[in-house]
């Protein structure tokens, strides 16, 4: 946000001859595929994190893989940075343009190329929306499992770049568990296949390395995902608890009982009330927390599991349990959870959504600390989270028109992420580091690790042209941020002068 410096001097070191670049790109792109005019570039100046804005030097909108290869070859030759972008729904500024670079829009790569229903594979272009894959697979009784909350808008290429998760990933995995093959354009324009339709491929697991790499290693131009058969039966339960801690203990007990639900989501009291006001889902507004649990499988299996889950919930203090009677009610139970973010928008003029993961056993402590941190800054935070996997999404409420509140929200966010690291978690569970959390990376990683990340990056992109300034901080940035990971009493980055 505004209090952060966006790009640092080392990220904007490029000497770009714009006229020459335009002339070269114009030869390979269709006329409407090269956006030079400032007004036309304006819509690209931010992604889903609207507080960060930066106009790109140019926008390139290729139609074909060959054009992507040519754009990359030209940019490599002329030493021009490139930021690839799909739907631009990143919540961490991952597709924020670079001031000296080309914003490479993959919006035209929006076709589902092939649904292979027999082998349960879908071959899609990177600009295809997440939900569109499931829509294309639905007539065959199949679906694509990872379902980020933004699935109606976010594109699959970005899902790979961020290793997106969602409600179903405790049981069905993240994007990395559901993608089998990528076609990638390297920084210098080569085309390479990563992964395979077979269960594995020879050599290093580059497929895993590309997931969550935030557009830093190559440009993804084609993706093959695996599809799953629709579950035969699905039950959705909703339980009320007086306290968040009781709900947290119920979650641990469900897992200890050997049950992995298809979805397991929790909202604290304030989030529940906000959601209820917004969608009228029939939520218990007296509850300190509600837990939504989805069970799927064969009819007999789901019946067995439902009985066990209800017993565990009661044993851990559930004050009420409702089981959705039909599909409409299942959808209603989920509607509030899925609308929690817009619902927060009704509580305050602005909200800032954080994303960190913690070991679940620290849930109660972490929520208590979040509340204390927020209060100390004069703000309120409400909590919705993927309870099954410990991925928190605190929503920090503020009013950007009140002087100092934006900075306070930012300070609360940063303190929450550092708290996640302190209890053994991470600064990002599914939104990515992007530009937003790059300083907090200095808290989670020591200098050898950060240097190793840079070495990995150089293996793919020796000139550092792909999405510079994102995801992995420079050691200079860490030193300046002053929030350094102290390991066993030793300060990291001892080689740097302290300011």
């Amino acid at each position, binding site marked *: 946000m505004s209090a952060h410096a966006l790009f640092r001097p080392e990220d904007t070191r490029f000497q770009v001859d714009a006229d020459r670049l335009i002339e070269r790109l114009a030869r390979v792109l269709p006329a409407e595929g090269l956006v030079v005019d400032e007004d036309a570039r304006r819509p690209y100046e931010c992604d889903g994190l609207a507080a960060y804005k930066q106009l790109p030097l140019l926008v390139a909108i290729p139609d074909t893989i060959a054009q992507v290869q040519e754009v990359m070859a030209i940019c490599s030759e002329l030493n021009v940075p490139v930021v690839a972008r799909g739907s631009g729904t990143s919540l961490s500024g991952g597709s924020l343009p670079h001031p000296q670079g080309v914003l490479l829009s993959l919006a035209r790569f929006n076709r589902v190329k092939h649904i292979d229903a027999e*082998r349960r594979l879908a071959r899609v272009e990177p600009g295809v929306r997440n939900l569109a894959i499931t829509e294309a697979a639905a007539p065959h009784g199949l679906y694509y499992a990872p379902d980020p909350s933004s699935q109606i808008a976010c594109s699959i290429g970005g899902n790979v770049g961020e290793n997106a998760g969602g409600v179903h990933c405790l049981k069905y995995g993240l994007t990395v568990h559901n993608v089998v093959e990528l076609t990638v354009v390297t920084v210098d324009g080569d085309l390479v296949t990563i992964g395979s339709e077979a269960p594995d491929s020879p050599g290093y697991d580059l497929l895993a*390395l590309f997931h969550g790499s935030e557009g830093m290693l190559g440009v993804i131009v084609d993706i093959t995902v695996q599809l799953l058969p629709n579950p035969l039966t699905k039950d959705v339960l909703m339980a009320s608890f007086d306290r968040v801690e009781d709900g947290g203990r119920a979650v641990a007990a469900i897992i200890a009982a050997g049950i992995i639900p298809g979805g397991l989501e929790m909202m604290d009291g304030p989030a529940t009330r906000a959601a209820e006001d917004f969608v009228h889902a029939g939520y218990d507004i007296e509850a300190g927390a509600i837990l939504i649990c989805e069970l799927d499988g064969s009819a007999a299996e789901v019946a067995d599991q439902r009985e066990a889950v209800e017993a565990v919930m009661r044993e851990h203090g559930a004050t009420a349990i409702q089981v959705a009677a039909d599909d409409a009610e299942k959808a209603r139970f989920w509607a509030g959870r899925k609308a929690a973010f817009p619902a927060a928008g009704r509580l305050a003029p602005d909200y800032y959504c954080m994303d960190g993961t913690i070991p679940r056993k620290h849930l109660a402590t972490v929520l208590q600390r979040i509340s204390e941190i927020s209060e100390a800054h004069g703000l309120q935070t409400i909590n919705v989270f993927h309870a099954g996997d410990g991925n928190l999404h605190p929503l920090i409420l503020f009013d950007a028109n009140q002087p100092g509140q934006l900075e306070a929200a930012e300070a609360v966010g940063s303190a929450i992420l550092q708290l996640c690291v302190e209890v053994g978690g991470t600064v990002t569970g599914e939104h990515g580091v992007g530009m937003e959390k790059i300083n907090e990376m200095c808290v989670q990683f020591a200098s050898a690790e950060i240097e190793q990340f840079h070495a990995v990056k150089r293996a793919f992109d020796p000139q550092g042209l792909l999405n510079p300034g994102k995801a992995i901080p420079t050691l200079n940035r860490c030193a300046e941020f002053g929030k350094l990971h102290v390991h066993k009493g030793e300060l990291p980055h001892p080689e740097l002068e302290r300011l």
Partner: protein
Amino acid sequence: MARVSDRSQSIAERIAAASEAGTPLAITGSGSKAFYGRAPQGEALDVTGHRGIVNYDPTELVLTARGGTPLAEIETALDAEGQMLAFEPPRYGGGGTLGGAVAAGLSGPRRPFTGAVRDMMLGTRVANGRGEIMRFGGEVMKNVAGYDVSRLMAGSLGTLGVILEISLKVLPRPVAAHTVVLETPMGDVFRHSEDWLRRGMPLSATAHDGERLYVRLSGARSAVEDATRALGGERIDDAPGFWRSVRDHTHDFFTSEGPPLWRLALPPGAPLPALDGALFSEWAGKQLWLRSAADAESIRRETARLGGHATLFRGGDRSGEVFHPLEAVTLRLHRELKRAFDPAGVLNPGRLYPNL
């Protein structure tokens, strides 16, 4: 009481010294997979002393252990809590360490239904080729901070770093399991498996020995009972023993004298390869074991034609291309990555590919 010992520092120091001197190191665990990959070269760096479970919290579904910890010790600890390593790592010769299982990247019978070793990786501590100790990932299910170096370690055969510590996602052990045996041709395994999965049956393994198809069902008692009734077929006496023999290659197919053993990884629904030799099918037809005297080139050409790749798994010439050759750009990326982790080229050089 299991032995517990942290040798991180001495391992890192040994690597740093080797890096300085340019001395290749051959990382060794229990030696259960010494036959696998290209022939090891260099001074032995024994990591079996670096062992012990560091953290295990059943309700978090996470276990962290040192690289030299025997698989048997880990499986015993998990078993006591009703949990398991869902990728069923092979224990060739009855042994194997966790670090070796991850470095080899091999998974057992449950792999196509629950996931591979790389799918369960949450975090690692590794010593790179400069002897720097680094931690990547962690003990939480969702983590996208930095590149996923942890999963990159799976199957890298120790060429990128010595795996000091591993955090894995573990899963509840299914409460019920049953194996049925059916008379059906090997070429029909994929079609049948798909049909059963879409009918909601809790498949957890398939194996076809050339004559009969073995199907394991695991999950909630009701689901296993329903599926067993629907499938019919015969029972076998010792189902767990049978699956162990497939996992650990103690089944007759693997132990008999004969030509080299190849592993073919194939896309779903691929037809059987037109190759001379004996076949054993696993993973709903996606993993085939081939005993064949045919030349490497024809085996690779036929497997690639079907969209897969072939590994000379056991026997044959261990100084040649044991793994499927990489395309030029991919090979260049591999060399650059190796250099990024191990600039002096001292960690298991040549074990995966020549000059890597």
